[in-house]
Protein backbone atom coordinates (compact mmCIF):
# COMPACT_ATOMS: atom_id res chain seq x y z
CA UNK A 1 0.00 0.00 0.00
CA UNK A 2 1.35 3.38 -0.98
CA UNK A 3 0.64 6.25 1.34
CA UNK A 4 2.11 9.66 0.90
CA UNK A 5 2.94 11.29 4.19
CA UNK A 6 1.67 14.76 4.82
CA UNK A 7 3.94 17.61 3.85
CA UNK A 8 6.09 18.00 6.84
CA UNK A 9 9.21 19.68 8.14
CA UNK A 10 11.40 19.97 11.23
CA UNK A 11 9.55 22.06 13.80
CA UNK A 12 10.76 24.05 16.77
CA UNK A 13 9.14 24.42 20.17
CA UNK A 14 10.43 27.08 22.56
CA UNK A 15 9.54 27.16 26.26
CA UNK A 16 11.01 28.12 29.66
CA UNK A 17 11.07 31.79 28.76
CA UNK A 18 12.65 33.87 31.54
CA UNK A 19 11.65 34.40 34.28
CA UNK A 20 10.05 30.92 34.06
CA UNK A 21 13.22 29.06 33.20
CA UNK A 22 13.44 25.28 33.49
CA UNK A 23 15.01 24.29 36.79
CA UNK A 24 17.58 21.64 35.97
CA UNK A 25 18.37 18.67 38.22
CA UNK A 26 21.56 20.48 39.18
CA UNK A 27 19.47 23.34 40.55
CA UNK A 28 20.61 25.73 37.82
CA UNK A 29 18.06 27.51 35.66
CA UNK A 30 18.00 27.39 31.88
CA UNK A 31 15.80 29.30 29.47
CA UNK A 32 14.58 29.86 26.92
CA UNK A 33 14.85 26.29 25.63
CA UNK A 34 14.13 25.26 22.07
CA UNK A 35 13.55 21.66 21.02
CA UNK A 36 13.79 20.68 17.37
CA UNK A 37 11.30 17.93 16.59
CA UNK A 38 9.72 16.04 13.76
CA UNK A 39 6.48 14.11 13.54
CA UNK A 40 5.40 11.35 11.20
CA UNK A 41 1.87 10.14 10.66
CA UNK A 42 -1.26 11.75 12.05
CA UNK A 43 -2.39 12.28 15.64
CA UNK A 44 -5.86 10.75 15.98
CA UNK A 45 -8.82 12.57 17.49
CA UNK A 46 -8.48 10.91 20.91
CA UNK A 47 -4.75 11.71 20.81
CA UNK A 48 -4.11 8.13 21.82
CA UNK A 49 -1.76 6.99 19.06
CA UNK A 50 1.36 9.05 19.84
CA UNK A 51 4.72 7.28 20.09
CA UNK A 52 7.79 9.13 21.32
CA UNK A 53 11.01 7.88 19.76
CA UNK A 54 14.19 8.93 21.57
CA UNK A 55 17.54 9.05 19.81
CA UNK A 56 20.95 7.83 20.97
CA UNK A 57 24.12 9.86 21.63
CA UNK A 58 24.70 11.20 18.14
CA UNK A 59 21.14 11.10 16.80
CA UNK A 60 18.80 13.95 16.02
CA UNK A 61 15.15 14.82 15.44
CA UNK A 62 15.29 13.45 11.90
CA UNK A 63 14.36 9.86 12.69
CA UNK A 64 12.72 9.19 9.35
CA UNK A 65 12.03 10.69 5.95
CA UNK A 66 9.56 13.54 6.23
CA UNK A 67 7.97 12.65 2.91
CA UNK A 68 8.42 10.15 0.12
CA UNK A 69 10.45 12.82 -1.66
CA UNK A 70 12.71 13.61 1.32
CA UNK A 71 16.26 12.94 0.06
CA UNK A 72 17.73 12.51 3.58
CA UNK A 73 16.94 9.23 5.30
CA UNK A 74 16.42 9.42 9.06
CA UNK A 75 18.47 7.49 11.60
CA UNK A 76 15.63 4.97 12.08
CA UNK A 77 14.08 5.04 8.63
CA UNK A 78 13.92 1.26 8.59
CA UNK A 79 11.55 1.30 11.56
CA UNK A 80 9.37 4.37 10.96
CA UNK A 81 7.05 4.75 7.99
CA UNK A 82 3.90 3.39 6.38
CA UNK A 83 3.64 -0.34 7.04
CA UNK A 84 6.87 -0.45 9.02
CA UNK A 85 7.44 -1.45 12.68
CA UNK A 86 6.23 1.98 13.79
CA UNK A 87 3.51 2.16 11.19
CA UNK A 88 2.79 5.81 10.41
CA UNK A 89 -0.57 4.81 8.96
CA UNK A 90 -1.56 3.94 12.53
CA UNK A 91 0.72 5.87 14.84
CA UNK A 92 1.78 9.47 15.29
CA UNK A 93 5.53 9.26 15.79
CA UNK A 94 7.41 12.10 17.48
CA UNK A 95 11.18 12.52 17.71
CA UNK A 96 12.99 15.50 19.22
CA UNK A 97 16.65 16.40 19.46
CA UNK A 98 17.75 16.18 23.10
CA UNK A 99 18.44 19.14 25.34
CA UNK A 100 22.19 19.81 25.12
CA UNK A 101 22.26 18.62 21.50
CA UNK A 102 23.44 20.51 18.45
CA UNK A 103 20.90 19.72 15.78
CA UNK A 104 18.29 22.38 16.41
CA UNK A 105 17.74 22.02 20.16
CA UNK A 106 19.27 24.27 22.80
CA UNK A 107 22.80 23.22 23.67
CA UNK A 108 26.31 24.59 24.19
CA UNK A 109 26.50 25.87 20.60
CA UNK A 110 23.28 27.92 21.03
CA UNK A 111 23.39 31.65 21.70
CA UNK A 112 23.37 32.56 25.37
CA UNK A 113 20.75 35.34 25.58
CA UNK A 114 22.71 36.94 28.42
CA UNK A 115 25.90 37.42 26.39
CA UNK A 116 24.73 37.26 22.79
CA UNK A 117 27.45 34.64 22.19
CA UNK A 118 27.37 30.82 22.09
CA UNK A 119 27.23 29.27 25.57
CA UNK A 120 30.28 27.06 25.07
CA UNK A 121 31.22 25.58 28.43
CA UNK A 122 29.09 28.18 30.25
CA UNK A 123 26.20 25.89 29.35
CA UNK A 124 24.95 24.15 32.52
CA UNK A 125 25.37 20.41 33.06
CA UNK A 126 22.23 18.62 31.90
CA UNK A 127 21.05 15.12 32.79
CA UNK A 128 18.85 12.38 31.36
CA UNK A 129 16.17 13.68 33.72
CA UNK A 130 16.45 17.19 32.27
CA UNK A 131 16.20 15.80 28.74
CA UNK A 132 13.08 13.83 29.69
CA UNK A 133 11.55 16.83 31.46
CA UNK A 134 11.95 18.91 28.34
CA UNK A 135 10.44 16.14 26.21
CA UNK A 136 7.46 16.13 28.58
CA UNK A 137 7.02 19.87 27.93
CA UNK A 138 6.90 19.11 24.21
CA UNK A 139 4.31 16.37 24.75
CA UNK A 140 2.23 18.83 26.82
CA UNK A 141 2.57 21.38 24.03
CA UNK A 142 1.29 18.83 21.51
CA UNK A 143 -1.74 18.30 23.77
CA UNK A 144 -0.99 14.63 24.40
CA UNK A 145 -2.00 13.38 27.81
CA UNK A 146 -0.79 9.83 27.47
CA UNK A 147 1.77 8.47 25.04
CA UNK A 148 1.01 5.09 23.53
CA UNK A 149 4.70 4.31 23.92
CA UNK A 150 8.20 5.66 24.50
CA UNK A 151 10.90 3.86 22.55
CA UNK A 152 14.64 4.30 22.47
CA UNK A 153 17.92 2.44 22.15
CA UNK A 154 21.12 3.04 24.11
CA UNK A 155 20.89 6.59 25.52
CA UNK A 156 17.35 6.71 24.12
CA UNK A 157 16.63 3.60 26.18
CA UNK A 158 17.89 5.31 29.33
CA UNK A 159 15.40 8.09 28.70
CA UNK A 160 12.61 5.58 28.04
CA UNK A 161 13.44 4.08 31.46
CA UNK A 162 13.44 7.58 32.93
CA UNK A 163 9.94 8.19 31.55
CA UNK A 164 8.82 5.00 33.31
CA UNK A 165 10.09 6.39 36.60
CA UNK A 166 9.38 10.14 36.25
CA UNK A 167 6.11 10.10 34.32
CA UNK A 168 4.60 6.62 34.75
CA UNK A 169 1.08 7.98 34.27
CA UNK A 170 1.90 9.64 30.97
CA UNK A 171 2.80 6.42 29.11
CA UNK A 172 0.86 3.27 28.22
CA UNK A 173 3.99 1.35 27.31
CA UNK A 174 7.75 1.59 26.96
CA UNK A 175 10.37 -0.19 24.87
CA UNK A 176 13.91 0.28 26.26
CA UNK A 177 16.44 -1.29 23.86
CA UNK A 178 20.13 -2.20 24.42
CA UNK A 179 20.37 -0.10 27.54
CA UNK A 180 21.03 -0.11 31.28
CA UNK A 181 19.71 1.06 34.65
CA UNK A 182 22.99 2.81 35.36
CA UNK A 183 26.20 3.61 33.54
CA UNK A 184 29.06 1.34 34.59
CA UNK A 185 32.77 2.21 35.11
CA UNK A 186 33.69 0.61 31.77
CA UNK A 187 31.08 2.67 29.94
CA UNK A 188 32.19 5.84 31.73
CA UNK A 189 35.81 5.03 30.87
CA UNK A 190 35.14 4.87 27.13
CA UNK A 191 33.25 8.16 27.27
CA UNK A 192 36.07 9.76 29.25
CA UNK A 193 38.66 8.81 26.61
CA UNK A 194 36.46 10.49 24.02
CA UNK A 195 36.14 13.62 26.12
CA UNK A 196 39.88 13.73 26.78
CA UNK A 197 40.53 13.50 23.02
CA UNK A 198 38.32 16.56 22.46
CA UNK A 199 39.80 18.58 25.32
CA UNK A 200 43.35 17.70 24.24
CA UNK A 201 42.71 19.28 20.84
CA UNK A 202 44.41 22.73 20.95
CA UNK A 203 41.45 24.13 19.02
CA UNK A 204 39.07 23.26 21.84
CA UNK A 205 40.20 26.27 23.88
CA UNK A 206 38.18 25.40 26.99
CA UNK A 207 35.06 25.15 24.87
CA UNK A 208 35.06 28.66 23.45
CA UNK A 209 36.00 27.83 19.89
CA UNK A 210 32.92 29.07 18.05
CA UNK A 211 33.81 31.41 15.19
CA UNK A 212 37.33 30.00 14.90
CA UNK A 213 38.91 26.63 14.06
CA UNK A 214 36.93 23.67 15.50
CA UNK A 215 38.44 20.88 17.64
CA UNK A 216 37.78 18.58 14.70
CA UNK A 217 40.61 16.12 15.25
CA UNK A 218 39.67 15.58 18.89
CA UNK A 219 36.01 15.05 18.07
CA UNK A 220 36.92 12.66 15.23
CA UNK A 221 39.04 10.55 17.60
CA UNK A 222 36.20 10.52 20.14
CA UNK A 223 33.87 9.24 17.44
CA UNK A 224 36.37 6.58 16.36
CA UNK A 225 36.51 5.22 19.90
CA UNK A 226 32.73 5.23 19.98
CA UNK A 227 32.48 3.25 16.76
CA UNK A 228 34.81 0.56 18.07
CA UNK A 229 32.52 0.05 21.04
CA UNK A 230 29.41 -0.08 18.82
CA UNK A 231 30.69 -3.02 16.79
CA UNK A 232 31.71 -6.53 17.81
CA UNK A 233 34.81 -8.59 17.17
CA UNK A 234 32.77 -10.70 14.74
CA UNK A 235 31.16 -7.82 12.89
CA UNK A 236 34.53 -6.08 12.45
CA UNK A 237 36.17 -9.27 11.18
CA UNK A 238 33.31 -9.77 8.74
CA UNK A 239 33.29 -6.17 7.57
CA UNK A 240 37.01 -5.50 7.22
CA UNK A 241 39.05 -8.64 7.80
CA UNK A 242 42.72 -7.72 7.54
CA UNK A 243 42.23 -6.17 4.15
CA UNK A 244 44.50 -3.26 3.24
CA UNK A 245 44.04 -0.42 0.79
CA UNK A 246 45.47 -1.00 -2.67
CA UNK A 247 46.89 2.49 -3.18
CA UNK A 248 50.22 3.38 -1.66
CA UNK A 249 49.93 5.09 1.72
CA UNK A 250 51.56 8.55 2.07
CA UNK A 251 53.53 7.64 5.20
CA UNK A 252 54.32 4.67 7.41
CA UNK A 253 51.48 5.21 9.86
CA UNK A 254 48.78 6.47 7.54
CA UNK A 255 45.52 4.50 7.55
CA UNK A 256 46.35 1.30 5.72
CA UNK A 257 44.00 -1.38 6.97
CA UNK A 258 40.40 -1.04 5.87
CA UNK A 259 39.24 -0.79 9.45
CA UNK A 260 41.51 2.23 9.94
CA UNK A 261 40.12 3.89 6.84
CA UNK A 262 36.58 3.20 8.00
CA UNK A 263 37.17 4.72 11.43
CA UNK A 264 38.78 7.87 10.08
CA UNK A 265 36.00 8.24 7.49
CA UNK A 266 33.42 7.92 10.28
CA UNK A 267 35.36 10.36 12.45
CA UNK A 268 35.76 12.98 9.72
CA UNK A 269 32.13 12.74 8.70
CA UNK A 270 30.94 13.13 12.26
CA UNK A 271 32.80 16.42 12.65
CA UNK A 272 30.69 17.91 9.85
CA UNK A 273 27.44 17.36 11.72
CA UNK A 274 28.25 17.33 15.42
CA UNK A 275 29.45 19.88 17.94
CA UNK A 276 32.37 18.86 20.18
CA UNK A 277 30.91 20.56 23.26
CA UNK A 278 27.59 18.75 22.78
CA UNK A 279 29.61 15.53 22.73
CA UNK A 280 31.10 16.47 26.11
CA UNK A 281 27.77 17.45 27.65
CA UNK A 282 25.78 14.49 26.36
CA UNK A 283 28.37 11.85 27.27
CA UNK A 284 28.56 13.41 30.74
CA UNK A 285 24.78 13.22 31.06
CA UNK A 286 24.96 9.53 30.09
CA UNK A 287 27.71 8.91 32.65
CA UNK A 288 25.67 10.53 35.42
CA UNK A 289 22.75 8.25 34.56
CA UNK A 290 21.86 6.00 37.47
CA UNK A 291 18.19 5.18 37.97
CA UNK A 292 18.99 3.22 41.11
CA UNK A 293 20.66 6.18 42.80
CA UNK A 294 19.96 5.13 46.36
CA UNK A 295 16.73 3.30 45.48
CA UNK A 296 16.42 -0.43 45.82
CA UNK A 297 16.03 -2.41 42.61
CA UNK A 298 12.65 -3.69 43.79
CA UNK A 299 11.28 -0.17 44.28
CA UNK A 300 12.15 1.79 41.16
CA UNK A 301 9.26 0.55 39.00
CA UNK A 302 6.77 -0.06 41.82
CA UNK A 303 3.23 0.80 40.77
CA UNK A 304 4.07 1.17 37.09
CA UNK A 305 0.95 0.36 35.07
CA UNK A 306 2.58 0.63 31.65
CA UNK A 307 3.42 -2.47 29.66
CA UNK A 308 7.15 -2.83 28.99
CA UNK A 309 9.14 -4.65 26.32
CA UNK A 310 12.88 -4.90 27.01
CA UNK A 311 15.11 -5.82 24.07
CA UNK A 312 18.82 -6.70 24.18
CA UNK A 313 21.36 -8.14 21.75
CA UNK A 314 23.61 -11.09 22.51
CA UNK A 315 26.80 -9.62 20.98
CA UNK A 316 26.40 -6.15 22.54
CA UNK A 317 29.44 -5.81 24.80
CA UNK A 318 29.03 -2.08 25.42
CA UNK A 319 25.60 -2.62 27.00
CA UNK A 320 25.81 -6.35 27.80
CA UNK A 321 22.64 -8.40 28.14
CA UNK A 322 23.10 -8.73 31.90
CA UNK A 323 22.27 -5.03 32.15
CA UNK A 324 18.96 -5.57 30.37
CA UNK A 325 18.37 -8.59 32.60
CA UNK A 326 18.77 -6.25 35.57
CA UNK A 327 16.05 -4.04 34.11
CA UNK A 328 13.91 -7.17 33.75
CA UNK A 329 14.64 -8.14 37.35
CA UNK A 330 13.49 -4.73 38.56
CA UNK A 331 10.31 -5.06 36.48
CA UNK A 332 9.59 -8.55 37.81
CA UNK A 333 10.10 -7.45 41.40
CA UNK A 334 7.69 -4.57 40.83
CA UNK A 335 5.12 -6.89 39.24
CA UNK A 336 5.07 -4.89 36.01
CA UNK A 337 3.49 -6.43 32.89
CA UNK A 338 6.77 -6.87 31.05
CA UNK A 339 8.49 -8.98 28.41
CA UNK A 340 12.14 -9.56 27.59
CA UNK A 341 13.65 -10.59 24.27
CA UNK A 342 17.30 -11.28 23.64
CA UNK A 343 18.00 -11.04 19.93
CA UNK A 344 20.69 -13.21 18.42
CA UNK A 345 22.90 -10.79 16.53
CA UNK A 346 26.57 -10.42 15.73
CA UNK A 347 26.44 -6.65 15.18
CA UNK A 348 27.30 -5.64 18.74
CA UNK A 349 25.67 -2.51 20.17
CA UNK A 350 24.89 -1.24 16.65
CA UNK A 351 22.40 -4.11 16.36
CA UNK A 352 19.60 -1.89 17.65
CA UNK A 353 19.78 0.06 14.38
CA UNK A 354 20.55 -2.95 12.18
CA UNK A 355 18.44 -5.91 13.33
CA UNK A 356 15.42 -4.46 11.60
CA UNK A 357 13.47 -7.61 10.88
CA UNK A 358 13.43 -9.04 14.41
CA UNK A 359 12.80 -5.66 16.03
CA UNK A 360 10.03 -4.84 13.58
CA UNK A 361 8.28 -8.10 14.34
CA UNK A 362 8.49 -7.58 18.10
CA UNK A 363 7.67 -3.87 18.20
CA UNK A 364 4.83 -4.10 15.71
CA UNK A 365 3.07 -6.91 17.56
CA UNK A 366 3.80 -5.49 20.99
CA UNK A 367 2.37 -2.06 20.10
CA UNK A 368 -0.61 -3.77 18.57
CA UNK A 369 -1.45 -5.47 21.86
CA UNK A 370 -0.95 -2.17 23.75
CA UNK A 371 -3.14 -0.23 21.31
CA UNK A 372 -5.86 -2.89 21.54
CA UNK A 373 -5.65 -2.94 25.31
CA UNK A 374 -4.65 -6.60 25.32
CA UNK A 375 -2.56 -7.66 28.27
CA UNK A 376 -1.94 -10.33 30.84
CA UNK A 377 -4.62 -9.04 33.21
Amino acid at each position, binding site marked *: MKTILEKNETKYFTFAQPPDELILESGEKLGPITLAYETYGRLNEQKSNAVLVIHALSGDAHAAKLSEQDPTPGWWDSMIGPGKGLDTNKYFVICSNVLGGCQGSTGPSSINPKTGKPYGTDFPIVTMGDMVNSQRQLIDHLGIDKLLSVIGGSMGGMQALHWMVSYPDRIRSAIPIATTLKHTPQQIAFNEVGRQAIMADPNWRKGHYYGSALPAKGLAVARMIGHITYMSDTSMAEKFGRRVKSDKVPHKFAAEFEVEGYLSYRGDNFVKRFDANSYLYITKAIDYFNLLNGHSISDIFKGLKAKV*LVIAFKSDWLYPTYQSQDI*VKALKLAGVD*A*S*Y*CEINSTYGHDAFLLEVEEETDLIKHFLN*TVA*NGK*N*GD
Partner: protein
Amino acid sequence: MTHSNKIENELIMEWISEGSTVLDLGCGNGELLSQLIEEKHVRAQGIELSDEAIHRCVARGLSVFQEDIDSGLAAYGDKSFDNVILNQTFQQVKKPDLVLREALRVGKKVIVGFPNFCYITDRFQIFFRGRVPVTPSLPYEWFDTPNLHFLSIADFQEYCKKRDFQIEKSVFIRGNTKVRFFPNLLAEAGLFLLLS
Protein backbone atom coordinates in the same frame (compact mmCIF):
# COMPACT_ATOMS: atom_id res chain seq x y z
CA MET B 1 9.94 -26.96 24.54
CA THR B 2 6.69 -26.82 22.67
CA HIS B 3 5.30 -30.28 23.36
CA SER B 4 1.70 -29.70 24.23
CA ASN B 5 -0.87 -32.30 24.88
CA LYS B 6 -4.51 -31.43 24.85
CA ILE B 7 -5.43 -33.56 27.84
CA GLU B 8 -2.51 -32.26 29.89
CA ASN B 9 -3.56 -28.67 29.22
CA GLU B 10 -7.14 -29.53 30.18
CA LEU B 11 -6.02 -31.07 33.47
CA ILE B 12 -3.79 -28.10 34.24
CA MET B 13 -6.72 -25.81 33.52
CA GLU B 14 -8.77 -27.75 36.09
CA TRP B 15 -6.07 -27.48 38.74
CA ILE B 16 -5.67 -23.73 38.45
CA SER B 17 -8.20 -21.60 40.23
CA GLU B 18 -10.01 -18.61 38.82
CA GLY B 19 -8.18 -15.27 39.07
CA SER B 20 -4.95 -16.74 40.45
CA THR B 21 -1.39 -15.95 39.36
CA VAL B 22 0.60 -18.29 37.12
CA LEU B 23 4.22 -18.62 36.07
CA ASP B 24 4.77 -21.05 33.20
CA LEU B 25 8.36 -22.26 32.91
CA GLY B 26 9.00 -23.13 29.29
CA CYS B 27 5.73 -21.66 28.07
CA GLY B 28 6.36 -22.42 24.38
CA ASN B 29 4.28 -20.26 22.09
CA GLY B 30 1.99 -19.31 24.96
CA GLU B 31 -1.01 -21.45 24.06
CA LEU B 32 -1.72 -22.62 27.61
CA LEU B 33 -1.14 -19.17 29.11
CA SER B 34 -3.51 -17.52 26.64
CA GLN B 35 -6.14 -20.13 27.42
CA LEU B 36 -5.66 -19.62 31.17
CA ILE B 37 -6.00 -15.86 30.81
CA GLU B 38 -9.10 -16.15 28.70
CA GLU B 39 -10.94 -18.83 30.64
CA LYS B 40 -9.56 -18.55 34.16
CA HIS B 41 -8.72 -14.84 34.16
CA VAL B 42 -5.32 -15.50 35.69
CA ARG B 43 -2.42 -13.07 35.81
CA ALA B 44 0.28 -14.87 33.91
CA GLN B 45 3.94 -14.77 33.08
CA GLY B 46 6.06 -17.13 31.06
CA ILE B 47 9.71 -17.99 30.64
CA GLU B 48 10.89 -19.39 27.32
CA LEU B 49 14.18 -19.69 25.45
CA SER B 50 13.16 -20.16 21.83
CA ASP B 51 13.25 -17.03 19.64
CA GLU B 52 10.31 -18.08 17.54
CA ALA B 53 8.16 -19.00 20.55
CA ILE B 54 8.96 -15.72 22.32
CA HIS B 55 7.88 -13.71 19.26
CA ARG B 56 4.59 -15.62 19.21
CA CYS B 57 4.05 -14.89 22.91
CA VAL B 58 4.72 -11.16 22.44
CA ALA B 59 2.25 -11.11 19.56
CA ARG B 60 -0.34 -12.70 21.87
CA GLY B 61 0.23 -9.85 24.35
CA LEU B 62 1.66 -12.18 26.99
CA SER B 63 4.24 -11.19 29.59
CA VAL B 64 7.21 -13.41 28.71
CA PHE B 65 10.93 -13.48 29.42
CA GLN B 66 13.54 -14.97 27.16
CA GLU B 67 15.62 -16.62 29.83
CA ASP B 68 17.04 -19.89 30.98
CA ILE B 69 14.75 -21.59 33.49
CA ASP B 70 17.85 -22.77 35.35
CA SER B 71 18.67 -19.16 36.30
CA GLY B 72 15.47 -17.21 35.62
CA LEU B 73 13.73 -17.79 38.96
CA ALA B 74 16.21 -15.95 41.16
CA ALA B 75 14.51 -12.59 40.51
CA TYR B 76 11.22 -13.71 42.05
CA GLY B 77 10.38 -13.37 45.70
CA ASP B 78 9.11 -16.23 47.89
CA LYS B 79 5.54 -17.30 47.11
CA SER B 80 5.13 -14.65 44.43
CA PHE B 81 2.86 -16.92 42.34
CA ASP B 82 -0.14 -19.07 43.22
CA ASN B 83 0.92 -21.58 40.56
CA VAL B 84 4.17 -22.45 38.84
CA ILE B 85 3.96 -24.78 35.84
CA LEU B 86 6.82 -27.04 34.75
CA ASN B 87 5.10 -29.10 32.09
CA GLN B 88 7.36 -31.12 29.77
CA THR B 89 10.28 -28.88 30.62
CA PHE B 90 11.24 -30.54 33.90
CA GLN B 91 13.33 -33.21 32.11
CA GLN B 92 14.94 -30.55 29.87
CA VAL B 93 16.50 -28.23 32.42
CA LYS B 94 20.11 -28.67 33.45
CA LYS B 95 19.41 -28.93 37.16
CA PRO B 96 15.90 -30.30 37.70
CA ASP B 97 16.37 -30.65 41.45
CA LEU B 98 17.40 -27.01 41.85
CA VAL B 99 14.70 -25.77 39.47
CA LEU B 100 11.95 -27.67 41.28
CA ARG B 101 13.11 -26.41 44.67
CA GLU B 102 13.19 -22.87 43.26
CA ALA B 103 9.73 -23.37 41.76
CA LEU B 104 8.45 -24.48 45.17
CA ARG B 105 10.01 -21.40 46.74
CA VAL B 106 8.46 -19.02 44.20
CA GLY B 107 5.07 -20.73 43.91
CA LYS B 108 2.45 -21.87 46.40
CA LYS B 109 1.64 -24.80 44.10
CA VAL B 110 3.80 -26.36 41.43
CA ILE B 111 2.51 -28.44 38.53
CA VAL B 112 5.12 -30.82 37.14
CA GLY B 113 4.65 -32.91 34.02
CA PHE B 114 7.13 -35.17 32.24
CA PRO B 115 7.29 -38.17 29.90
CA ASN B 116 7.51 -41.52 31.67
CA PHE B 117 10.71 -43.17 30.53
CA CYS B 118 9.52 -46.57 31.77
CA TYR B 119 6.34 -46.69 29.68
CA ILE B 120 5.83 -50.18 28.31
CA THR B 121 6.70 -49.33 24.69
CA ASP B 122 9.93 -47.69 25.84
CA ARG B 123 10.77 -50.80 27.84
CA PHE B 124 10.10 -53.00 24.82
CA GLN B 125 12.35 -50.91 22.60
CA ILE B 126 15.16 -51.12 25.10
CA PHE B 127 14.67 -54.76 26.02
CA PHE B 128 13.92 -56.37 22.66
CA ARG B 129 15.43 -53.99 20.16
CA GLY B 130 18.33 -52.83 22.30
CA ARG B 131 17.61 -49.25 21.30
CA VAL B 132 17.04 -46.00 23.13
CA PRO B 133 13.28 -45.51 22.75
CA VAL B 134 11.69 -43.21 20.20
CA THR B 135 7.95 -42.97 20.89
CA PRO B 136 5.17 -40.38 20.61
CA SER B 137 5.94 -39.14 24.15
CA LEU B 138 9.72 -39.33 23.61
CA PRO B 139 9.86 -38.43 19.93
CA TYR B 140 13.54 -37.47 19.67
CA GLU B 141 16.58 -39.39 18.49
CA TRP B 142 19.36 -39.66 21.06
CA PHE B 143 21.62 -37.28 19.10
CA ASP B 144 19.06 -34.52 18.82
CA THR B 145 16.94 -34.42 21.94
CA PRO B 146 16.18 -31.51 24.25
CA ASN B 147 15.61 -34.04 27.06
CA LEU B 148 18.55 -34.08 29.42
CA HIS B 149 17.13 -36.31 32.17
CA PHE B 150 15.21 -39.54 31.88
CA LEU B 151 12.94 -40.47 34.73
CA SER B 152 9.97 -42.66 35.40
CA ILE B 153 6.81 -41.95 37.36
CA ALA B 154 8.13 -44.18 40.18
CA ASP B 155 11.46 -42.30 40.16
CA PHE B 156 9.66 -39.01 40.62
CA GLN B 157 7.43 -40.32 43.41
CA GLU B 158 10.44 -41.64 45.26
CA TYR B 159 12.31 -38.38 44.70
CA CYS B 160 9.41 -36.38 46.17
CA LYS B 161 9.38 -38.64 49.22
CA LYS B 162 13.11 -38.18 49.68
CA ARG B 163 12.86 -34.40 49.33
CA ASP B 164 9.72 -34.31 51.48
CA PHE B 165 7.67 -32.68 48.71
CA GLN B 166 3.98 -33.07 49.24
CA ILE B 167 2.13 -34.52 46.23
CA GLU B 168 -1.41 -33.19 46.41
CA LYS B 169 -2.69 -34.73 43.19
CA SER B 170 -1.35 -36.86 40.38
CA VAL B 171 -2.71 -37.96 37.03
CA PHE B 172 -1.26 -40.44 34.56
CA ILE B 173 -1.85 -40.19 30.87
CA ARG B 174 -1.61 -42.29 27.76
CA GLY B 175 -2.58 -40.58 24.51
CA ASN B 176 -5.69 -38.65 25.44
CA THR B 177 -6.88 -40.89 28.26
CA LYS B 178 -6.16 -41.22 31.94
CA VAL B 179 -4.37 -44.34 33.17
CA ARG B 180 -5.62 -45.76 36.46
CA PHE B 181 -3.57 -48.90 36.98
CA PHE B 182 0.16 -49.56 36.89
CA PRO B 183 1.00 -46.06 35.74
CA ASN B 184 4.74 -46.65 35.79
CA LEU B 185 4.21 -49.31 33.13
CA LEU B 186 1.14 -48.08 31.28
CA ALA B 187 1.32 -44.27 31.29
CA GLU B 188 3.26 -42.18 28.77
CA ALA B 189 3.33 -39.16 31.02
CA GLY B 190 2.73 -38.10 34.59
CA LEU B 191 1.31 -34.84 35.87
CA PHE B 192 1.75 -33.89 39.52
CA LEU B 193 0.47 -31.09 41.70
CA LEU B 194 2.91 -30.31 44.50
CA LEU B 195 2.27 -28.10 47.50
CA SER B 196 5.10 -26.10 48.92
